[in-house]
């Protein structure tokens, strides 16, 4: 148990370093690879939070689907990607200031708040409880069904948008 803070600090530092490289590196393929590293670090954070199912979903869905989709998009738009010139716009310093102010404001607020300590005891079988709650009419079956309808709409919509053909005229 005493090793947990060390693991957390190391993983958090590596994840933030990878995320920093995602947002600063010039080559977008490298940025996508660093994005995979950052997402994997977040999966480790989920394991530290006793959310094993979340870590699995993170690896399967974020790394397995979204990151690969991003790599595909980078490759399909490759000609523009290798353009010379800066990869950030003229007002990038304004964006940096906004991000830093946001971080300082949030962290100064949350370090002044008294948060609850970690509840003792085992969390139990969260996968079973989560699966039951997602199909329980008294709990979250409606958000679950709405999410599935939303995924179908997104699927059809993205096919319709990306379909080549008559829309180019």
């Amino acid at each position, binding site marked *: 148990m005493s090793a*947990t*803070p060390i693991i957390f600090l190391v993983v*958090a530092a590596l*994840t933030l370093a990878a*995320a920093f490289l*995602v*947002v600063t590196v010039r080559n*977008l393929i490298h*940025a996508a690879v660093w*994005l995979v590293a950052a*997402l994997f670090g*977040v999966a480790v*954070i*989920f394991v530290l*939070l*006793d*959310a094993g199912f*979340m870590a699995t979903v*993170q690896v399967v*869905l*974020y790394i397995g689907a*979204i990151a690969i*989709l991003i790599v595909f*998009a980078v490759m*399909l738009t490759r*000609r*523009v*990607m290798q353009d010379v010139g800066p*990869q*950030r*716009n003229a007002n*990038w310093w304004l*964006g*940096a200031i906004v*991000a*830093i102010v*946001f*971080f300082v404001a*949030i962290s100064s607020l*949350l*370090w002044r708040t008294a*948060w*609850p300590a*970690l*509840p003792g005891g085992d*969390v*139990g079988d969260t996968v079973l*409880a*989560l699966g039951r*709650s997602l199909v329980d009419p008294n709990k*979250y079956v409606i958000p679950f069904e709405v*999410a*599935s309808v*939303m*995924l179908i*709409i*997104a699927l059809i919509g*993205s096919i319709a948008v*990306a379909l080549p053909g008559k829309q*180019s005229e």
Partner: protein
Amino acid sequence: MVPLSWYLTFAAALFALGLYAVLARKNAVAILMGVEIMLNAVIVNLVAFWRYGNPADIAGQAFAVIVFAVAAAEAAVGLALIISIYRQRATVMAEQIDLMKW
């Protein structure tokens, strides 16, 4: 034992990095990567609050699962839009996609 504020600080830093990518990056795909990082920071917050709040109540994880689904839908639609724009205008630079800019 790791205090909750560490997780929240980590998530805030991750969110700030994503925000910087959204505001400063030229390439629309890179902007989408920033959005993904921000969504991931939010999910870290949700799971951390679930763990430190009431782990017996699974609400936090159910919320996180719904956010995962939203992130997947967002990535699919966003990348489809980018590829469609690239096919029609041969650019993925956000500042050149100004057809609806007034």
